[in-house]
Each structure stands twice: as structure tokens, then as C-alpha cells.
């Protein structure tokens, strides 16, 4: 189920037998196939070509596929695309607004292999934007606990999120 269907070319009609549903992603509305068991991750990666969202486990355990749905962090790998009603934001949509956060990731060394990084950035960007970054580092770590990283030991991620959150707070 994770293999790529080829990305539909512009103008090419959707296969008529499969119904479509409307999905708003990064501010744009898309008509996407609505096979009931297609996950949001399948649709984002294979149909819309948004491959920044990663498949780590396919079971909602690791956080590599984190996206925002109406501002809340959600796991695209276990969300059925046809049930997603809200506005989906992926790393592609958040990369520019979260540039300062990403730069902080670079400065602290908050990524190594990079595979979990889009999910980490999306989760952190959602927290920062909603002003929900806890003041205490231990609480912040608890808020970031849904995104597993095997490389960094998390410390640099926490530092980066703290740096970016403080900068955002100072600017507003």
C-alpha cells in the first residue's frame, strides 16, 4: 500500500471508478482519490508528490509522518484521507514560515540523518505557532515525545525549538 501510484499529470482525468474527495493542503484545494483505505500519507506522497512527509513505521508510532491538521499535529500514516476534513499543512508548506526554526536546527545540530526531521520541524512549528511551547524543558521534551529520533539524542532538537520559540516570542 505504500508503493507509488504514479503522480497524475495535470489535465489527466482521475480514474472515473474511484470517487474523489477534496483535500486542502498547504492552502490549496486538491481533488484526490478517496479509496476508503488510502491514508493521508499515501495521498500526500504518491498523489500530490509531497514527499517531505516520511513513512517511518506506518503505525502511528514514530512521528516521521507528522503533519498539521487545522493546526494540530497528526499522523498521516494512520489518518484515512477520506476522513480528513481540515486544512492539512505539510513540511512543504511550513518550510518557509518555519525558516528560523529550521536555521536553529542547523545551528544546534538538531538533525543528522534527517529522516525524522520534517516531522520534528512540523511538530515544533505547530507548537511555536500556537504559543504552546512549555517554559520548562522537561515539559517541552514531553511535548516532543511523539517524534522519535535515533541520531541526535534529542538535546539539540530541544535547544533549537527553545531558540526559535524565544525568538518568536520576542518578536511578537
Amino acid at each position, binding site marked *: *500500500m*505504500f*508503493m*507509488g501510484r504514479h503522480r497524475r499529470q495535470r489535465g489527466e482525468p482521475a480514474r472515473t471508478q474511484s470517487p474523489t474527495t477534496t483535500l486542502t493542503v498547504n492552502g490549496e484545494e486538491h481533488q484526490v482519490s478517496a479509496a*476508503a483505505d488510502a*491514508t493521508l500519507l499515501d495521498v500526500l506522497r504518491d498523489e500530490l508528490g509531497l*514527499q*517531505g*512527509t*516520511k*513513512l*517511518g*513505521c*506506518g*503505525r*502511528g*508510532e514514530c512521528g*516521521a509522518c*507528522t503533519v498539521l491538521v487545522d493546526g*494540530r*499535529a*497528526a*499522523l498521516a500514516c*494512520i*489518518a*484515512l484521507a*477520506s476522513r480528513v476534513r481540515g486544512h492539512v499543512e*505539510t*513540511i*512543504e508548506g511550513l*518550510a518557509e514560515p518555519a525558516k528560523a526554526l*529550521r536555521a536553529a*536546527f542547523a545551528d*544546534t*545540530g538538531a*538533525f*543528522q*540523518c*534527517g*529522516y*525524522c*526531521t*520534517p516531522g520534528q*520541524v512540523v*511538530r515544533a512549528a505547530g507548537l511555536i505557532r500556537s504559543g504552546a511551547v512549555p517554559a520548562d524543558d*522537561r515539559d517541552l*521534551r*514531553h*511535548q516532543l*515525545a*511523539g517524534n*522519535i*529520533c*535515533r*541520531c*541526535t*539524542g*534529542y*538535546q*539539540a532538537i530541544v535547544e533549537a525549538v527553545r531558540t526559535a520559540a524565544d525568538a518568536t516570542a520576542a518578536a511578537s
Partner: protein
Amino acid sequence: MTKPRVRHAEWDERTSGRTSYVGDLPTFGVLSAALLRSPHRRARILKIDTSAAEACPGVRAVISAADLPDRHYTDNGTSDRPALARGEVRYVGHEIAAIAADTQEQARAAIERIRVSYAPLPPFPSFESQLKSGPSGGDECIAGSLDRLFGDERCFETEPAIRVTGEYRFGSQAHACMEPHTALASWNAENNVLDLWAPTQGTRSVQRDVALMLGLDADQVRVHRIAAGGDFGSRVRPGDIEVVTAALAIKTQRAVRLMLTRDEEFAHTKRRHDFVVRLSTGAAADGRLLTRTAEILVESGGFAQASVSEMGYSSQLLASQYRVDAARIQGTAFYTHRRPGGSFRGAGGPQAAFALEVQMDELAERLSIDPVDLRIRNAHQPGETTTAGWQIEGSRLTECLQTARAAVDWDQRRALAGSGRGIGIAAGTHVSGVLTNPHATTASATIDLGADGSIVVRTGAGDPGTGQPMVAAILVAEELGVDPDAVAIVYQDTAETPYDPGAGASKGTFMTGSAALGAGRLASTRVRELAAAKFAVLADQVTLADGLVTAGHDTMSLGDLVASAPEANDGILRIHYRHDLELPLLTGSSGFGNLSPSYGFAAHAVELDVDRSTGRIRVHRVHAVHDSGTIINPTGARGQVVGGVVMALGAALGEELVYVEDQLANGSYTEYAMPRAADAPEVVPIFLESDTGPGPQGAKGLAEVALAPVAAAVVNAVHHAVGVRITDLPITPDKVLAALEAADPHQIRLNGSRSTWRRIDPHRWWIHLMRWAYPRGLHAVLHHYGTRLARRRRPADRLKLIPAGTGQEAARRLAQTPRSRPLGGGSDLIVARQQGLRTEENLVDLTGIDELTVLEGTCDGDLRIGGAVTLEDLGRFAAAHGDTAIASAIDTIATPQIRSVATVAGNLCQEKRCSYFRNGYPCYKRGGASCPCYAVLGDHRFYHAALGGHRCQATTPSDLATVFTALDAVAVVQGPTTMRRLPIRDLYRGPGETTLRNDELIAEIVVPAQARRRTTVFEKLGLYDGGFAMVAACASLEVDDDGAITTCRAVLGGLAPKPYRATDTERRLIGHVPTDSLIDQASTSWTPHADPLPGTRWKLRAGSNLLARALRTAADQRPPRTTPGHA
């Protein structure tokens, strides 16, 4: 001399999701591959019939061993593994055949059609039996052995003043890379070249081995640059998917991709070998180490795969980490029928260091010497040669130890032993590359200087997070007087870069850096020569800075100078440098000799707390002091140290691959307890730099030595905190509590019921009879024969979503639609479908139904919680309205992402978390009465029952069920025609199994006002932040004006098949003022009802203590809160 921190060259791509991994490459026209794996642990393959599979739609090729050259992976010396099983399968999951088809579904469907006839062979003895009863099974089950004497044998003739002996086990750890193994290959028939996209830190070793396995020349394999989502040794050599993918590509003449699922990633890729070191050290009374003997026992798995070389490295380290007159090291690596292990960060070093460094503390204790002093007393000094022949040219180990000691205020705090808070120190030593084969001792780098001013460094190194190409760029930039970001990096691709040996054995910075530095110096020299000629000055009068070349008043840009170079070609001046280690190779089996050009050292100080009540260990801080020479890339170096420490803490405290029937039982991130952000401590890296060593600017390797001291420092700190020394990793709460109990003769043993046969209780007799019979043949009979009668579950069909407008309509839909089930957030149901636990295809969607999301306090003070309310919403509401037990329970459940979709009803109705049930074992609950419960003889310590277990030993995993039981909550159950009220205590009939009918759903949960007015406290013990409850306790108290308890609920979760109300505890407390001693007594009074399995007995202690803590906190929180608010 500390260098500035620089950003990774690819930071923008890697943080914005634009970096491509193999799974991101275009798939149009690419075939999908799947593997057939052995269900047997050991069997002869009589016949493989692929005809039915070949006839399946979409299938383009089927291959088995017969389609491949008869070759074995080179694998660090012991070469025994073919790419696909040849004649015999040797482990569960052994790859037998592979299929390439148009789609993944077609490939997987066709795999099912391959018919293999097996003749089972007698299995080898298990590793546990090899440990227990001594080696058995003969030579055929030995992958390798060694018997090495370092130093003078006569040293053993004198008995030392003191001798300490112990057994130290460093269990099997998963690499658990975030990117599951994926490879893509295509055959370029025009050039006879295989194009391969295989993420790795060892590009050339993959190229070499793939070529060897397929009978190609190395230059017929092009390994392309592709991002690697983690390596840690798992992909430094091919061995899981690369060769098979390539063979399918050659056979089909098409591009083929093979991508493992997370299940396969855990169960069927390399892992760290299970290591046991039996170590004995003799010392003089003054603390000088004299002799050491060791027996290393290694569990290889089905093939040797690095186990023999890692055992060899362990043997050398055991004789090298400290001065010792002589060391006799024996070792045996045993074949078993588990998935073969493989290279893992540290490569036998952390296992040896663990044994050594725990034993150093034991020695220090016996000698009454400070453990750090003992280490310093025996630390190697620069210029010394170790007993195993390592030439330590530079070592700051002594300073590392002193720095670590100062960092934790050792002298002050060490005096406070037994306080529950502990500090521990341990050291580590590791190579910077090994002088064992010619491939590892040479590296090259190329610099292209462009007439346009560009600087490009080419290195064959990969970058799975190690940042090697950054090291190259930083060194080249320095030589040429530019910022690192002015140097472009071309790396990894074998067609575009010169030879680099890769990052194994901590040689990345050493080798790649040496090559880059050499190339940079050559380039700098050549530029100066050109400028000298141009400006008519001496070369040493030329300076390079900011891309300008200057001599006196003359200045020109680097680009213009390059354009004038006579040897420039198309505007490119190419400088190539090859770095060779001119050192003798260490060959032969003695193991004696200099192993590495340079050695790195570290000393770590760990600060932690041990919770005596639950056995939980919380590490607060790790000071990681490293002698790694010059730190070239500070950001990368810090990252390697912090990440290495946390990875080793995982092995020390939770990570453990559990096998039952030689099949992996805990292959998922929820079951395999890896540290999450909240579990990881603060890590303080401290680098004691020096630039005198033979590495580039004196740099040494550091990413592996960062793991070496950690586990021993933890064990030593735990000993300091509570006085017990646990030498069998990981140190999980069960082991801590067992050790504390064993160390305290006054503590009353909680054993559960001892009067099974005296009480008239046929059910209990039956359970005990079964448990008695399981190890005496019943399990074997049920496993081998009973499971053949298991009911077959049909595979889950494509699901259909059924909308509903109201709860009643939803219930009607459930009644009308066969094979239907309500769907809440889907965080369990969607997963359970994948796991084959739920096969209903018609899912009635509850999330759009307004009435199911009611969340309010009524005017009576009741709390109404709609079944489809998310945990996040309930948690926020509960926190705001004083329902703190609900809020705190929710805060411990899973992750923020899960809590934002998971519903209250879904949490209550989730399937049990038994890993056998979840992971495809044909168990009693999956297969029916003829099947065994695998937990009885398997690992059952964490998620199985200690009370009321039946044929199934699982527990109800819902924490909300525990809290709601304590709050006398009532479920309002919606049926197709009626609603009924069902007390939560009647909701469950078994572990994670409800009494709801198929056409019913939980419309809401009502927490009565009276219960809300009580003081309720929830406590939980999980293996990691967000993990399921091993034990949970909820106490709910009402106290009268005199302080006496009038109402009490004491509920335990994770302990019994259903949330367990400890009514004996409640009775003991009601009517009394809760004193500490009364609470302590009352909290254990339920334990006589328990009938734990051997591994769950610890839960009686943990459950009692957790319950006591909850009761005490609740009692202390008087007076109870005011009237519940309503919203």
C-alpha cells in the same frame, strides 16, 4: 584552537523535506519486490516450486539461490552467508526467494504462491542453554572461537591479592534506523553497469560486496548518492536487501525497488549481537591490575555476520583498556536460529567496556579504593603499548577521568551512598579505524578549483548523519582560506568521487579528513606556486583569504589564478590526493599487535535517581568527557556524542530484542523501548582537545567511544544510589525491584497466593495445572500441533466507511451491516487491521457525530464525556475543571499526535497489547483453544497479568479504564433501539475485551458528581514516556472532618486482565485516618489474591508501592476540591 560551529551544508534540504531518500525516488515504471521468508528455524529445502508464483499477474521475475552465483558475503572475515538460502534455512525469516512485480500488492500476493518443501532439521541449542549448561551441540553450531593469551603466561602462576569475578550481559539491540531498509537497482545494459541506490555509510564496501555476490567487477556497480536515514552499522555492508534487489533488476532488465516495512525492519535486518562476558580480574592490594581472564559468549544468529570479528575486538579491548600484566581471553560465537546480528556502532567495544568498567567499581569496593582513583592508577599513559599490543601514542584518559570527577562534584556526592540518587563514572577506549585490511587503510579526495572561483571537494564518504563530507569541507576551506560554505561537496557516488573506505570503526574523520586535508594542502601549495610565479615572489609570501590570493600589494581572485594554470582543463584545476596509512597490517589469529593508527578515550559521569518503589531509573545528566583530539566539526562532534550517549542509555535501560520460538516478539516502536525526547537526559559533552596525533590536525574517531562508558556508568550510579549492582542489561524496573528485594533480608516477599491447592477453586486449579504442564510438554504440543487447528482469520478486506448522523443511527448501521465495527480516531483500529487482529471491513465512522463529542459538567455536577471526544480535548477540559486524575492519566498516554485523534471510547476498547497477540503468533486468543499462550513460557514481565490470568495472560491496556473504575464511571451504551447504562467495572469481560455487543457503541461516559468530589490520584509505571502501563494505580478518597476515610477506591491497571479493584485495600482503609504505616499495610493486602507468572511477580511489589503512593498523595491533598464546575 576550538573551531567555530558551522551549519551542515545540506541543512536547508534536510530540514525542509527536500532531501531524497530511496523511497522518494520516482517510481514510475519501477518494479516492486517482495521476499519469501522461512517459517522454520532450521530445515533442509527439498524443493522450491515457483511456477504458480510466476504465473501470477504482474510478476516479472522470481529468483532463489539457484539464480545467483554460489557466493557468500565477505563480512569481516567469516564468510558464511549467501544472499538467499541455499539448501538450508537457518533462522526464522531466512530469505528464500524474491519476486519483482508491477505493484507491491502483486509481489506480495505472488510470494504466497511459492511452494517450498522443507525437511525440518534438529535445531541447535539455544543461546540460553549454551550459557546455562556449557557449550553443546558440537562444532556445527559454533560460528567462531578464540583463545588468546596476551602477556606472559607465568603471570597467572601467582595468586593475586584480590580477584573479582562476574558475568556481564549486554543484550541484543536494534539499530532501529528511522528509514526502513530500501534499495533501488537498475541494470544499464548499454554499459553493463548496475545502478544502485542503497543508503549506506560504507559506499565502497557495498559496491565491493554487491559486485562479489553477483559475479560482477566492482566498477560494474555504481552506488549512487542517496540520503541514508540512519546506519549505525546496519548498512555499512550489504546483507539484507541490496543483492537481491540488484539480482532482480538484472534478471528483469528493469528498475526494481525493495522496501521493508517497519515490522520487517525490526525482525529481519541486522541487530547487535547478544554478548555475555564472564570476567575475572586479579589485582594487587595497592590496586594495580595484574591478570585478567575472560570468556566471551556471543549469540551470532543464523550466520556469523560480524559476530566473530566483534568478539575478536572485544578480546583485544579487554586486554587494552587498562594496564594489565597478562590477559587470557577465550570466546565462542554460537549459531542460533535467530536473525543474524551484524555490525553495530561500537562493534564489540561497548560490551567489553561494560564488563570491564562495572568490574572496576567492584574491584575498587573490595580494595577500598576510590573507583576513579583505581582507574587513574591503571590508565595507560602516552607512549605505552597495551598488553594486546596497541600503541597508545596519545591518551588523555587520566584527564578525562579527572574532568568527569570534577563535573559531578564526585568527592562530595560520592559520600552520600544509598540516598536513591547516584553518580557513577566509567571510561571507554576505541580505535580510529582498524589496520586489519587494505581497504580500510587508504582514502582519497579530489579538489576541483574552478576558473569561476568555485571550490569543489570530492569524497567517497557517505553521510547517514555522520557529517563526514562536512569534515572534508571544513579542512579544505581552512587550507584555501575560505569559509566552509564556500566549498561545494560532491560525495558518495562511486562514479563521481574517489575511493573512501567509509565510516566503520570510527575512521570517518580520520581517513576522510586525512585525505581531504592532504588534498587541501596540495591545492594550497599549487595555488601559492601559481601566485608566486605570477607575482614574482616566493610561495611562502603568498596568502590565501576569502577567495583572494595576495602577495604584498598584488591581489587576484582564486578563480582568475586558476584560469591561468597551465594544467587547468576546461577551466578546472583538479588536485587529487591519496592518503595511505603506512603502518603494518594486523593479521593472524593471535590478536596481538597495533590495531589502529590512533585511539580515542572517554570518561562519562552519570547522575541519576532510582525510585525504590517502582524500580524506575531516571537519568538526569551525563557529563561526557572525550579525548578525541582536535574537534574539526564541533556541531557534528557534539551530535555524535549526545546521540551516542542516548543510544547507549537505551541499551542500558530499556532496549532489548525479545525472541520467543526464535521469532521476534517486540518488533515495533511501541514495544521496543527506545528513549523518547522526555526520557533522554541532558548530556554535557566536554572535549579535551589535542593536535599531536597522527589524524588530520590530530583528530580521532569519537562516534563509537561515545557509547562505551554509558551502561557501566549507569550500573555504577545505580549501585551508588541504592546499593545493588545489576549486570544484565537492560536494567528494567523488574530487575531493580528484584535486586532490592534480594538485598534486603527484612523486606517481606510478596509472592501471591500460596494456597492454591487448599482452596476450593477449580478455576485456579485448572490455571495452575496448565502452568505446571506448559514447560513439561504442553506448550510444545500446543505450539507444534495445536496451532495447526488454529482458526484462520480471513485477511482484512478493503475497508468501507459508513457515515452516520447520530449515535443511534450508527448503532443501527452496525446492526444492519455484517462485519462492521465502530471507528473512532482509528489510532488502534487501523493498526489492528494491519496486524490482522480486526478484519471487519465496514467501519462506521463516529467522528462526525456531534452528540458523541459532548463534554460538559452537568448541573448535577456529573461529568459527561462523549465517546468520540479526543484524549487531547478531554485532557484539557479535565485539567481546567479539577478532574486532575483524568488529566494526569491522559498526559501519560501515548504521544501528543495520538492524543489529538484517539477517542475516549477507542481508548477503552483498544485491543490488548500482548506482543505475541499483536505480532502474529498463533496464540490462544488469535487461534483458539488448541493454541498456546506464548506469554506463559515467553517474556511476560511487562504487559502481562500477575493476578487473575486465564488461558490468556494479557491485561487491559487502557489507563482511562483504570481511572474511570476508580471514579465509579458509567458507560452509556447506545444500541440500535435502546440505550443502557453500564458501570465501567462491567465493561470488560477479558483483557481489552468488552461486553458490548457488535451493534453497540459507547455513546458517553458519565463520571458521577460524588466521585468527582473525591480526591483522586493516578500513578503509572511505563517503560518510556507515553508507554503502556506495566502497572498503574488509581486511588480515590473521601475523608470526613476527622480525617478518617469514608469512601475509598483503590484500582490497579496493567496487573490483571481487567482493571482490578483492590477491595481488601479499600476495606482496610475505610473508617481509619490514613497513616503511612496503615497505607503501606493496606496497599499490599490484595496480593494474596495474585497468582503471578515468574516474570510478573515484581508487579506485586510495584503495584503495592504505586498504590501506596497514590493513596498517600490523595490523603495528603485534603481537603478535597470544591464543587465540580460545569462548563
